[in-house]
């Protein structure tokens, strides 16, 4: 798929990639590259390295080309060495070799960033490195296709409003409630992810019920229902900004005070942390993950539940939610509300292990074997505590858990936390 060299018309080039990296150089990156001592501990934090045993999947090694640029152009010492003819050249071939390292074997879960003894935020740098990979034409086909679809159709999976409309009708029929559309001045604008709409339609029904129960004023927007941001996954801020702007425009148009990101990890980090920086200004509204909203409703006493799940449950914290966004206690509070027999995975919260599908890995067909390899770490964690069901709050994680557990013939269903809460709502009379 790498055709830059042969197709003269390609808009991407090595130089454009290097320019993108130059844009990304900042003090943290320089301090991180200055500090690595090749101790290799980040490898022990990476599910891709741990489960494949291949040293080339060591997180910091994935950044070697970008490190070379930093050394050669951003240190006096490196410039001097360059003048003396020392040091490797960054080439297209090199970037091609690194493409699978930066995309297929990294879910940007950030676990390495938590473990590195010198404090290198490796995931932060991987995100930056992907900018250069896109601009040099070394992004995986699957992610390119998803980005193009997201920009052109509004959904990375090419999902149309018509499809969602059918689902809304279905939810309304089954729940007897109305799904509010384009409600001017609603408190919350609810976003969805295409994967959720296709794989887990029960989510929409669940929030419809919960918000009705708690008396929350909310709405969907016909202009923009998609929460996910393929631009973040492929690692391009221009695409990311375009997609973020759609959400901002929809929210501003409806005059909402808050935007709710669905049960999707990267959508949340994309809109919560990256979005304002992609568009270069702060939002006139707040952004929450659905779990944050539910926990706030619980704390305010607006959610009344009855009954508890009696089977042995455990929970997978999505990396984007827990480690990368600090939403950790909220899902625990909600679990306490509805689960009687809850057991933590041994490493959970900010040190949980990635399911293996995040950071665009699940949109990159080529990465399928690595994705399944990385899942083995999660599988081992699950086996340690032997739950009867797993709970999570990210559609990508949930899909990966379901596929992975099935692959290894483990009969452990996976449920979304929002649905579980919806099932325990006290009937109002």
């Amino acid at each position, binding site marked *: 798929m790498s055709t830059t060299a042969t197709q003269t018309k*390609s808009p991407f080039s090595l130089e454009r990639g290097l*320019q993108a990296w130059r844009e990304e150089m900042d003090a943290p990156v320089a301090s991180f590259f200055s500090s690595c001592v090749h101790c290799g501990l980040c490898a022990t934090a990476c599910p891709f390295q741990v489960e494949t045993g291949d040293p080339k999947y060591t997180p910091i090694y994935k950044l070697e080309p970008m490190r070379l640029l930093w050394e050669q*152009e951003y240190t006096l010492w490196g410039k001097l060495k360059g003048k003396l003819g020392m040091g490797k050249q960054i080439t297209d071939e090199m970037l091609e070799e690194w493409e699978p390292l930066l995309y297929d074997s990294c879910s940007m879960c950030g676990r390495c960033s938590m473990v590195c003894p010198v404090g290198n935020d490796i995931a932060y740098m991987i995100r930056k490195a992907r900018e250069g990979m896109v601009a040099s034409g070394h992004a995986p086909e699957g992610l390119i296709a998803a980005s193009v679809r997201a920009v052109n159709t509004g959904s990375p999976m090419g999902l149309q409003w018509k499809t969602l409309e059918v689902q809304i009708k279905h939810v309304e029929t089954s729940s007897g409630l109305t799904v509010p559309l384009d409600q001017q001045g609603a408190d919350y604008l609810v976003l969805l992810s295409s994967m959720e709409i296709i794989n887990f339609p029960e989510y929409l029904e669940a929030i419809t019920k919960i918000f009705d129960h708690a008396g929350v004023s909310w709405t969907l927007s016909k202009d923009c229902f998609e929460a996910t941001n393929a631009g973040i996954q492929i690692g*391009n801020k221009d695409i990311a900004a375009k997609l973020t702007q759609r959400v901002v425009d929809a929210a501003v148009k409806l005059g909402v005070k808050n935007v709710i990101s669905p049960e999707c990890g990267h959508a949340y980090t994309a809109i919560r942390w990256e979005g304002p920086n992609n568009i270069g200004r702060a939002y006139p509204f707040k952004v929450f993950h659905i779990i944050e909203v539910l926990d706030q409703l619980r704390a305010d006493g607006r959610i009344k539940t009855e009954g508890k799940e009696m089977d042995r449950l455990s929970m997978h914290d999505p990396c984007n939610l827990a480690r990368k966004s600090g939403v950790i206690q909220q899902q625990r509070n909600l679990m306490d509300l509805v689960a009687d027999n809850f057991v933590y995975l041994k490493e959970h919260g900010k040190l949980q292990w990635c399911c293996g599908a995040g950071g665009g890995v699940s949109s990159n067909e080529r990465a399928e074997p690595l994705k399944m390899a990385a899942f083995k770490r999660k599988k081992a964690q699950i086996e340690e505590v032997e739950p009867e069901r797993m709970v999570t709050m990210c559609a990508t994680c949930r899909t990966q858990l379901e596929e992975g557990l099935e692959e290894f013939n483990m009969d452990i269903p996976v449920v979304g936390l929002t649905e579980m809460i919806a099932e325990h709502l006290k009937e109002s009379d």
Partner: protein
Amino acid sequence: MAVPNNPRKTLGESLRQHGVSRRGFLKFCAATASMMALPPSMAPAIAAALEKARRPSVIWLSFQECTGCTESLTRSFSPTVENLIFDVISLDYHHTLQAAAGEAAELAREQAMHENEGEYLVVVDGSLPGPGANPGYSTIAGISNLQMLQDTVAGAAAVVAVGTCAAFGGLPKADPNPSGAVAVSDIVKDKPVINVSGCPPVPMVITGVLAQYLTFGTLPELDEYNRPLAFFGQSIHDRCYRRPFYDKGLFAESFDDEGAKKGWCLYRMGCKGPMAYNACATMKWNGGVSWPIESGHPCLGCSEPDFWDAGGFYKALSVPIGDSGDVLLGAGAAGIAVGATAGIMSRRKSAAAKADHQPVTADELEQKL
């Protein structure tokens, strides 16, 4: 002094004449043997040889010195075997000690040189202005030190450089060395030079070297600085009675603190014992009464070359020489200036890249599919 005893007398005769008992003499010989790392059984042999030794002619040249070395030898508390040995060598020229002055004195030197051609010993104390320096800085009877040394050494059997000035240049050579002082060994290349360093040297070390020459007619085994290994083979630190405190980590930190009163190690007060090679710790001074460290003062390392310039006397051995603080400040400021310049260039590079940013579009990406 110039005409002390009958030159025909042997050392033994001379000693007995001075009332030194045979027992006292043998004790000296035993000590000499042990210092020369000879077995005690050699003591009688040394005694026998010394008894029979004829007084050799010694010419003592004093250049840029303070007379401390001569004082060390002669100002003993009571007559000792050490200074008696001096009585029984034929000290034919020593302008501090001799009665003769002026031309008569120089005549005595020339006479001794002439009469003992090839056999006399030259003892030098003090450094001398080197060949490149103004010879007028130090002259005797109108003769420059350099000239006198070269003339006198020409017919000598060996040269003994007594004291750190003669051995290594000493105080006159201390930075900035205004007189261009050099050590004897810088000038004398064709005769054996034995350095007996120290400021001043332990008297018995001087006589010990002479004793060996008298006993065996040989010169002692020397270290890398041409010092007799028997006396300079071990460091003060290795022989120091306060060493156990160093090993235990017990240190005096000022001259009147508890550690000083308890006799703890003086390393932190600047003791140069670890790098000083001398016999003070074993032979002591003033007839074995005491020595600097025993008196509570750190060793200055006076037997070592350039001890004047080897950092402060009261600064620990590990402390660098020179003002490191200023160097750090200066270099640090330079580093910040250069780093800031380089950093601003880097920033500009990134800013330029941002300014030239070509947004990636879906259409561009689509071309890749």
